[in-house]
């Protein structure tokens, strides 16, 4: 499972951590995040992210 970087603000989604504030637990790969998931830092959509 790879990390993904937000192209707007540089936030890194780490599947080993998930996004607890959005209810995303540990171990969820980026590809399986809901389509309406947004960057927890700047609010950018999923398609702004690229593999680290």
């Amino acid at each position: 499972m790879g990390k993904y970087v937000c192209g707007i603000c540089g936030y890194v989604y780490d599947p080993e951590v998930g996004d607890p504030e959005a209810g995303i637990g540990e171990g969820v790969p980026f590809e399986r995040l809901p389509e309406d998931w947004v960057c927890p830092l700047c609010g950018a959509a999923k398609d702004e992210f690229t593999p680290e």
Partner: protein
Amino acid sequence: MQNTFKAVRVTEDVWWVGAIDWNIRDFHGYQTMRGSTYNAYLILADSITLIDTVKAPFREEMMARIASVVDPGKIEYIVSNHSEMDHSGSLPEVIAAVNPKKVFASTVGVKTLTELFPLDRKITAVQDGETLSLGNRSLTFLETRMLHWPDSMFAYLNEEQLLFSQDAFGMHLASLERFADECDPAILAYEAATYYANIILPYSPLVLKLIERVTAAGLSFRIIAPDHGPIWRKEIVGIIGSYAKWAAQKPEAKAVVVYATMWHSTEKMARAVSEGLAAGGLGVKLLSMDEVHRSDVVYELLGAGALAVGSPTLNNHLLPNMADILTYLKGLKPRNLIGAAFGSYGWSGEAVKEIEDILAEMKVEKAGEGIRVKNVPDAEVLTRCYELGKTMAEKVRSRL
């Protein structure tokens, strides 16, 4: 005509050449009762460098201050630390007037500036950690994405240990005093805090990381020169310490009750909740959105442990001024709050549920069920409001 706008010396080689906006009272929704300044800085190194510019209508003031110390045509480099228009609005005209050798911005800054303005020249991207030689001086750039825009960066003048921090450590305060140590400390404390609350708060986790990074790198600052308000040269440890404290958002024994009212019923409930919060041992700020500005609510919320929100129901919804403050708060992402909702209604009463949904979205921990009352609260309802306040206070105190 003699030029009355002068540059102000900051160090041996650095001059303040910004502009003073005595009249601005609104910054996209943040009330700025003391006006502001747009700070630009001139480094008189071998390669003369301008750090940031000013809001478009203030260009002549900045150019006059520059001309008081050097021919503006001698500026070789312009650095844009932050693309927002209060610091870049005059950039296209300044570039045209000065014709610098190069203009620098962060990688995202290059993109943003190009999208904002029809620039007829290439902006050069600088990388995080890159150092630019100015001949006898050097500038190191530090990306600070989302503090508070994606393009934001700091520039550090190595030889002077001077940090150009763009909006960070700034405040909206118009004054002819250029240094913080020349200003009233009480005004500085208030303006720096309300600036943090209204601008920087959502990015608090990044502030903590940045402070960690700067500490680990062993950078020390003799001067912090922000893009708004006075320059820090004495209270550096103090302002960095304040940022660390505000960013940590550790709850204190303080509660904010914010409400609006139509016929004083919700107001009575707000008063009862406040009494309960105080009886539970918290300091309380009771703020009516019919009277206060949204920026004051955010200021009071800095360091608070509890937020109680009240609204009557108007045409099946929240009162518009409550939607205003809640939308504003949602974006500013205050953390570590205990919350509750209350409100009166005439026939349907949706507002309390609407508030609870917004509080949940804001990750505010619910202290208890919201209190709704039809028309006017009686003694029993007011006692429940009082008890709700006490419960909130207990929950906050258990976290201290």
